[in-house]
């Protein structure tokens, strides 16, 4: 019987000493394999008396269970230590930078962003977006808008012309987005509610003027809209666009050939080291022109001014972008300097919504 004790001690020592999985397997085969020491002992049970078998069987099986468990335990320990060893060799320098995600590198131009902001604000008030061609006729750009031939008001807008046609007519680059008012009124019956963003052109170029710039125009035509509505819309627009609770606005009488009465609108602001803050201060800054659509313009579009009425307004997109986002100069808008675009541009996923905030 002392044999079994010695055997157990010997086997457990061998298990403990097995330094890797193959060595442990050799121990297992030597003990539990077909001809292993424990298997051989188990075979002897057949030759024993039932009493002896009962007694010896329990003892030998107990030995077998303990050795088996020891092997399993040792096997798990060896596996863990092998893994640890492998992991020790598998290090990488995770401080190495990964490429910046393109969605963080790319930029939307401030003009596009502001057009999307304007669209969000006015779509909520029931306005659609209308557009028209950049190359216009004198008729749509001036005459139908009640600019009399030769009137000094035409001179207020330095116009780019194309070469005269054989019939004497001369196309031009639109000096404002207002010809789209004409196109809209000629194509659609009232009620009309549209905003008209787009490129416009005037042939002057200096520090504050560029030969191309962007305007957005609004037009409402129905049978009841009046200056009171216009005032309300522009107040709501300014609050929403500049993202402030209160904007003090000043409506001043002015003159545009295509509106009567005509108004200019100033907003109260404080100028501080080139920065403009709205809703405070006591400076006034002119931001837009507006008025009731001139009866002659309505007539020119086939609408009876005693039946239909409405209003229009126009403002510079580049200008309100500068006011809101603080670009000091207009020229760089059109220079595609990557430093400027990266700094003042917007990330592609910063989509302006009324729900999420216009400027994110």
């Amino acid at each position, binding site marked *: 019987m002392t044999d079994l004790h010695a055997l157990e001690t010997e086997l457990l020592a061998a298990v403990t000493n097995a330094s890797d999985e193959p060595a442990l397997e050799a121990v297992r085969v030597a003990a539990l394999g077909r001809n292993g020491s424990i298997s051989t002992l188990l075979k002897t049970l057949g030759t024993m008396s039932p009493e002896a078998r009962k007694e010896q069987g329990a003892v030998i099986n107990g030995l077998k269970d303990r050795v088996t468990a020891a092997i399993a335990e040792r096997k798990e320990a060896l596996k863990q230590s092998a893994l640890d060893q492998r992991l020790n060799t598998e290090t990488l320098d995770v401080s190495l930078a990964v490429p910046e995600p393109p969605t963080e590198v790319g930029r939307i131009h401030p003009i596009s962003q502001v057009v999307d902001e304007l669209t969000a604000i006015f779509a909520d008030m029931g306005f659609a977006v209308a557009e028209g061609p950049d190359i216009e006729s004198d008729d749509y750009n001036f005459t139908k808008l009640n600019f009399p031939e030769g009137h000094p008001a035409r001179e207020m807008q330095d116009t780019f012309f194309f070469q005269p046609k054989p019939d004497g007519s001369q196309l031009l680059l639109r000096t404002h987005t207002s010809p789209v008012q004409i196109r809209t009124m000629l194509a659609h019956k009232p009620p009309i509610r549209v905003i008209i963003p787009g490129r416009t052109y005037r042939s002057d170029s200096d520090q504050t003027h560029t030969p*191309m710039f962007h305007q957005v125009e609004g037009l409402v035509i129905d049978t009841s809209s009046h*200056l009171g*509505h216009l005032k309300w819309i522009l107040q709501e627009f300014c609050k929403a666009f500049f993202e402030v609770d209160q904007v003090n606005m000043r409506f001043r009488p002015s003159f545009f050939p295509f509106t009567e009465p005509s108004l200019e609108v100033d907003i109260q602001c404080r100028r501080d080291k080139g920065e403009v803050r709205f809703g405070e201060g006591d400076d006034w800054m002119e931001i837009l022109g507006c008025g009731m659509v001139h009866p002659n313009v309505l007539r020119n579009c086939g609408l009876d001014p005693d039946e239909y009425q409405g209003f229009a307004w126009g403002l510079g997109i580049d200008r309100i972008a500068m006011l809101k986002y603080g670009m000091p100069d207009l020229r760089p808008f059109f220079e595609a300097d990557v430093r400027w675009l990266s700094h003042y541009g917007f990330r592609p996923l910063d989509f302006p919504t009324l729900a999420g905030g216009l400027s994110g």
Partner: protein
Amino acid sequence: MMKFTLAWLKEHLDTEAPLAAVVDKLTMIGLEVESVADRGKMLAPFTIARVISAEQHPNADRLRVCMVDTGAGEPVQVVCGAPNARAGMKGVFVPPGAFIPGKNMTLGIGKIRGVESRGMLVSEFELQISDDHEGIIELPADAPIGANYAQWAGLDDPLIEINLTPNRGDCTGVNGIARDLAAADIGKLRDRSIRPVKGEFPCPVKVTLDFGTTPPLCPAFALRLVRGVTNNPSPAWLQRRLISIGLRPINALVDITNFVTYDRGRPLHVFDAAKVHGNLAVRRAREGESLVALDDKRYLLDSTICVIADERGVESLAGIMGGEATGCSDTTTDVLIESALWDPVNIAQTGRKLGIQSDARYRFERGVDPAFMLPGLELATSMVLDLCGGRASEVTVAGTPDTPEHIIDFPLQELPRLTGLRADPREVERVLGRLGFSITAGGKSLKVTVPSWRGDVEGKADLVEEIVRILGVHRIPPTPFDRGEAPRKPVLTPIQLRTRKAKRALAARGMLEAVAWSFIGRWQAELFGGGNPELALANPIASDLSDMRPSLIPGLVAAAQNNGDRGFANVALFEVGQVFRGDRPQDQFTAASGVRRGLAKPTGIGRHWSASDGEVDVFDAKADALAVLAAAGAPTQALQVVPGGPPWFHPGRSGSIQIGPQNVLGHFGELHPRALEILDAEGPLVAFEVILEKIPEPKARATRARPVLEFFPFQPLERDFAFVVDRAVNAADILRAAQSTDRKLITNVKVFDVYEGAGIEPGKKSIAITVTLQPREKTMTDAEIDAVAAKIVAEVGKRTAGVLRA
């Protein structure tokens, strides 16, 4: 710009209102105040002084040492460099310690070339009252020594400049501005009516309006002679009036015309009668005629220009500027005074053509009061008699001032209809009345007669403007604007949606959005298939901004190169904007285009340790183009990519994207090396351009629900094939051949390897593809799979002559 001073205004307006109230009210009734200058404060230290003696400076040829009587104690020694400094003259003195606005410095006591100078005699430029720095100011002999100069000259009177809108010809005179203010309750309009001057003899010079069969340019012309005048400098009050608004006094006759111009908005002209030969004709200039005008410049004239001529030739540019030869000087004894009406459009056109800005043009092109032609002449005549003496002739008039009565039917409801403002009818009548409108019927509708000076008032809407601007626009209540019952539908058109999606998609690929000029240089336009004469500007501001762009690529290439020149070689730029194929509206398209330069890969810009970096190539541009098309809603499955593109691309490294040969949506590729050279740009540079209008409209769907998703219970399986084909064979043809063998079973075919080199015959390449099979009814047997594979090999062989790689 209309300029006047507060004191001048008060000549027409009886008011106690302070400057700030006047200025604020002017702006709020539509006479926008551009600036207010309170020069009394700035010019306080400047006094009137007399030069007692002026001796040559011992050490400088051009300097004089003057002893100046400042009226305060001992004479002061001043070193002066002005050529007109001389003994006995009166001028303007400033002591040390004073600020000199024109020099933006504070004066100190100094030694000039060794001689002490304790003050300064100043020029108008140094006071910033004009640009004149020819010499020091010379004052009349009666100017009081020691008096404050600004006060004496009327310069302490606040100067107000109004940015006058082009419709308000009536406010080119101080009296018109006063009328508006009086209507707005800032004081009371003073009666400045004019007493006519009786002529003592017939005007000896006859006037004819001679336009023949051409459209007349002068409705009426009045003229009178004053004999025996003395044309001295005008009296101090008149000089001060003119100086106070920045005009230079010349002589009494000229000063009177300038005064009436500003006081009443009525330009006049005076001829020295001795220099006029015979009678006057108002006519169109003849080709080749010219005139030296009062600004000493010679103007070449033509038949679009209206002139006043005597028997010798042209003497005056009608309504714009008189001629030098017949101008009035201190020797003038007989003067012809002209007051006329001119065609405003013609005046504007002539002024623009000749490049003359004059006070007369400013008024005539806005339209003067036709009924004031004769009163203006009477006012000028009486001033001439007062200031210069002489005897006036009768007035001779050619033509007739056209002053038809203009009555507007004005329903009171028009005011609330257009503005939402409800006002007491008495208020409405009072405002119109004070502005000079007369009302001949009351009740719900007024009959309103428009005064002669308000030619800009056409109809009801103009009267509404008159009423609201005087009552105050602030009284219009903001009224909530109901968006109504209209359904909440998307408001953007398909092209607008495509445009905004295209922009976001390209920015999401790491590109920066540029906004470039819509016009480019002719050579750039021609290089990119443009340069049509109908798209060339007649008046470009620069030769590189002369033609409407046929493509966005030249602008983007230039921008990329500019960035490269600034040290940013690796840039990815895009633009979504208009391109022009012709000058009709339907010839304008929306292009989405981009360029990548240097190492500006979609996976990252610049060098990177991970080896994902490298130079941009044609496949980057292809990926950009396909990405923007997909984002803008193009049917990606239907897009075909065929080799080659327009000539500005590298012929072997470019492609076109189309849906059948009839609808080419765009192109991509490396730019042609010759194009880069012409554009003066350096590569590597790839570009793409797609036209968003070319994307077919998707079919309208009845429901927003997606089609039912089909799951298959059997696993898909993949089989790989490597084919050896000629180099010229397109990989896409191999894919198409494989796909075509069983469109239902084969759900995907992709190229996973391309190889040329060792082991492959020269002129050939190996293309390895993987084919995905999706069994639908049962698991496939090996025999079935082998059969499909054999069909694929056969079909690829048939279509491309490809053979399985050994």
